[in-house]
């Protein structure tokens, strides 16, 4: 017996979606730059994704600024280093509490049939954990100049963290959830602590990749006041993106608009500075990237840690 596909359904919420389309005015939030395919563009869009940092994927790289590499080593950065701050101030106490409450809901959560992370109801039985302490309630900028919130929550001996925007409901009452939840781990061997990193890119129909971004939480060691992260694309380093340590934690993002093609390599580096601007410990390379060919499902992929 041959398989049939499910019957078609009408698009729900048409008016709401059309409203959103017509309300779009921010060009900088554009996600991709492909050309409208009137007579061309035969290939399927290229997709690349970074997801989790597996401990085995992490490597400590002495790097030019961290040669000698123990945690006691300090090196003064070169004056020519270009830096970009991602910090945009602090959340108010009310904002911090609201975001922490939303964030901690995912502790103990479970799949809900028919619902995704983005659409799951605001509340359901059994969800959430008790907030112990709220830390690192800040605002950070993204590559599109939008502002996101960050918060870390201590609960039951563990630390959980979220970055993104506070959950809202759209005009027809649907939940719109747009933040990332992560759990801190003590297992990462690179000495940065915090969470594994999240990385992503935007694929274009011509088989190239661009719009790289990468972020992670870092647990700052003694004396560390600043954390920096940069992307080295095809051997050429970008600026150091910089954030201040708050409550012993740092959330650092980095991005690059460089276009990578098949076979190109890139890496992401993180370093820590003390109050005098000296590098503390080794420069850590926690992402290595190679652009692979198209995979079996037709999507070009990034290969990590090569």
């Amino acid at each position, binding site marked *: 017996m041959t*398989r049939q*596909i*499910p019957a*078609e*359904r*009408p*698009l729900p*919420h*048409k*008016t709401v*979606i*059309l*409203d*959103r*389309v*017509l*309300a*779009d005015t921010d*060009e900088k939030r*554009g*996600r*991709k730059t*492909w*050309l*409208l*395919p*009137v*007579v*061309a*563009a035969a290939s*399927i*869009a*290229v997709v*690349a*994704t*970074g*997801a*989790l940092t597996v401990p085995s994927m992490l490597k400590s790289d002495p790097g030019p600024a961290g040669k000698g590499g123990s945690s006691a080593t300090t090196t003064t950065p070169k004056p020519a280093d270009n830096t970009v701050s991602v910090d945009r101030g602090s959340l108010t106490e009310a904002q911090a509490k609201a975001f922490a409450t939303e964030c901690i809901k995912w*502790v*103990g959560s*479970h799949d*809900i*049939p*028919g619902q*995704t*992370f983005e*659409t799951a109801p605001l509340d*359901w*039985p*059994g*969800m959430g954990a008790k907030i112990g302490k709220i830390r690192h309630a800040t605002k950070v900028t993204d590559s599109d100049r939008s502002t996101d919130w960050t918060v870390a929550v201590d609960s039951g001996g563990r630390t959980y963290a979220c970055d993104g925007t506070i959950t809202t409901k759209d*005009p027809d009452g649907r939940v719109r959830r747009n933040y*990332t*939840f992560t759990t801190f781990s003590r297992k990462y061997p690179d000495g940065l602590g915090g969470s*594994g990193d*999240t990385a*992503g890119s935007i*694929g274009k129909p011509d088989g190239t990749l661009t719009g790289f971004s990468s972020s992670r939480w870092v647990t700052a060691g003694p004396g560390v006041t600043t954390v920096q992260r940069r992307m080295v694309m095809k051997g050429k380093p970008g600026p150091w993106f910089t954030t201040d340590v708050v409550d012993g934690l740092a959330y650092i993002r980095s991005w690059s608009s460089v276009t990578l093609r098949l076979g190109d390599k890139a890496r992401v580096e993180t370093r820590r500075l003390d109050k005098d601007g000296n590098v503390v410990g080794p420069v850590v390379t926690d992402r290595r990237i190679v652009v692979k060919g198209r995979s*079996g499902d037709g*999507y070009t992929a990034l290969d990590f840690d090569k």
Partner: protein
Amino acid sequence: MGVRRVEARPRYAVSDDRDLWERLRVADEDALADLFHRHSDAVYNFAFRRTSSWASAEDVVQATFVALWRRARAGKVDRLTLDTARPLLLVMAGYEAGNVLRASRRQAALTDRIELIDHTGTVPDHSADAAARVDDERSMSQTRRLLDRIPAKQREVVELVVWSECSIAEAARALGVPEGTVKSRLARARTRLAGLLDLGTTEGLE
């Protein structure tokens, strides 16, 4: 800024997609709205068949028309060479579906890290419609696994011609390949998937 609301308008019998497309090229908001009302269902179902998720399909619809609208406002929409914009919108939706899937996979990977501390929660009630949607998604996901047995270029022809009912000529124009290429890809797909997926007859392929 506030959200502008555009009321649904009756379809214009005298206005085909070429007219609307020409107006879209100069960023006519009503033209976009009309194109949306004409083709959003087709894009939605195409995107569902690509993503196996009704929720993701909604996101794909929005992303597709946002991309189109941005291009229109920037004056970067080329002339329409088909009578209908539907095949082009479906190809565009295919690109957007890739990015939506990328975001979904990243999110799924992240949620995998959630520690399951409390398993006592109960699942909220779901309507029959919601249950049917879940059934659809399971079924489509299984179908996609079968479809994954053939190359991507053959898959997209199946998606356009068999499932979205584009003509061979429309699919060829939208994909930028000769009609013969579309026919041969479809024929090979039918051969490979015979007995597994219902891909219709070979009529029109000879």
